[in-house]
């Protein structure tokens, strides 16, 4: 094929995808930045250039800071337990344990449920008095707790739901990685007199590092991107105690219809996601070869 024809064919093949990507990824990303410097058009007042005003509003907006710090806490409180539990699950079902198949199924099933369904199920689970959690507590004489209605527990209750939904998903990556570790490494360590605990920390865990990093980045992205359960369980309340950044952007953009301010906050969210994705890009190639 001539180089010229190859070039034309290449671009023609790329064209349909390029048009949609430009329209729904590149253009909106740029126009988010653009609109973050313009006031939101209202009935009598067309949009006008206001520079950094939205960003100044943001710095003075206590709800924004609550959402941001909640989200950071939420990220930390979902990523660390998800990784620890996923690793424990993978180690267990990688051993010859009684009922291994059923266990894997139990661990993985939440992954295929819609987050909305998961939120409904847990909403019932958390219901004061009536829900299973309070019923179990009442068996040992503990008082009722309004898990989702109290400032102290609402965010934590959301974290538990996320961990429940995500740990099984991350488990399969650990499981796949564990099965690529040659058994002779462990046997050699055992011959040297290493305990199981030492074998885990000195041999297995370091070898799982690429997987841990991959899971970490994914959990991080999800912590900022997935807010479906907030809609069903708390709507950010009580008193913004479970407000997350994307949910706040939704409220500002689609309930108060302040699209300019929502654009400014979207820029913050994009910056956070870009940081996470850059880490991922660094390791993407290695992960592909790794398989």
């Amino acid at each position, binding site marked *: 094929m001539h180089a010229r024809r190859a070039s034309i064919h290449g671009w023609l093949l790329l064209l349909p995808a390029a048009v949609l990507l430009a329209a729904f990824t590149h253009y909106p*990303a740029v126009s988010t930045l653009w609109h973050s410097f313009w006031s939101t058009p209202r009935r009598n007042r067309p949009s006008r250039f206001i520079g950094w005003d939205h960003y100044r509003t943001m710095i003075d907006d206590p709800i924004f800071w609550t959402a941001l710090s909640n989200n950071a806490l939420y990220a930390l409180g979902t990523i660390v337990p998800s990784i620890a539990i996923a690793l424990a699950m993978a180690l267990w079902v990688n051993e010859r344990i009684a009922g291994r198949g059923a266990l894997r199924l139990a661990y993985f099933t939440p992954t295929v449920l819609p987050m909305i369904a998961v939120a409904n199920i847990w909403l019932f689970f958390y219901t004061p008095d009536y829900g299973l959690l309070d019923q179990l507590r009442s068996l040992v004489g503990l008082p009722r707790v309004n898990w989702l209605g109290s400032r102290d527990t609402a965010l934590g209750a959301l974290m538990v739901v996320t961990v429940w939904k995500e740990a099984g998903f991350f488990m399969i990556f650990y499981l796949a990685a564990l099965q690529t570790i040659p058994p002779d490494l462990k046997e050699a360590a055992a011959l040297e007199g290493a305990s199981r605990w030492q074998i885990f920390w000195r041999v297995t865990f370091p070898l799982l590092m690429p997987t841990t990093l991959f899971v970490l980045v994914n959990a991080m992205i999800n912590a900022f991107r997935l807010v479906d359960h907030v*809609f069903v369980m708390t709507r950010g309340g009580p008193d913004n105690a479970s407000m997350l950044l994307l949910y706040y952007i939704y409220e500002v953009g689609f309930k108060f219809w302040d699209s300019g301010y929502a654009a400014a906050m979207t820029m913050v969210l994009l910056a956070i996601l870009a940081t996470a994705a850059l880490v991922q890009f660094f390791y993407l190639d290695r992960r592909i070869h790794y398989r």
Partner: protein
Amino acid sequence: MSAIGERIDDAGAAARAPGARRARPPLGERIDRALHTIGAWTLGIVWLLPLAYAIWTAFHPTEFSARFDPTAPWTLENFRAAWDAAPFAQYFVNTFALVTTILVGQLVLCTLAAYAFARFEFRGREIAFVLVLLQLMVMPDVLIVENYRTMHRLGLVDTIAGMALPYMASAFGIFLLRQAFKTVPTELEDAARIEGCGTLGVLWRVYVPLARPVYLAYALVSVSHHWNNFLWPLIISNTVGTRPLTVGLSVFAGTDQGIDWAIINAATLIASGPLLIAFLIFQRQFVQSFLRAGIR
């Protein structure tokens, strides 16, 4: 029932087998093993409890919603009530249309683009590829405000097309298929060209059939992702005629219903049922696909 990761397991089990046939292990090791089994099962039961509770409630009369009586009668009444109370049949049609539209669009667009990146030399290819990968970072899930503005201008608010368009050119699909196409030997392409195949003919006859496992994996991940997707469909749909199941379920549980948990749980199971059943039947394919397609 044990399909997850079984393939690679067999090798591991074989390697461990000689040790297993030895005499009874010492007491310490047996206690250790028992503790691990107990730990694993405790976690397993905790993991199953919420779903089991929902299933119990959905299949029993309301008065047993929070009372565990093994003699309680089983019933499908809650499912009938939920089905009658909200247009779930329409929601199913909508979700089905949405998921199919997205998948067909993704398969066509990503195949073409992946072929261009894998096998064509053209100016600006590297930059174009970086611009594609940018979508992994700047996801449509987050650009809700601006994409709504665009859909509004295009008159696509409250349409399936409006819900599907932002997801069709999937950077991840392009990336995955490009990797698969690159492993195809160029001799096959040359042979097909000599046989008289044009560019699209080669793609269709040589590349697509060879990448079939990748297509299957990608399709499973895409369908489960978009079956479960919520935020963008919530924003763009506002009538029964377009609402997918997830949005329909949230509307139903939020307003249409008081707090009859039996019926809400039945509706929840209706919405997640098809995917859950498909998963139980095709466990191995699901897990392999999710594994292959790590980043969605």
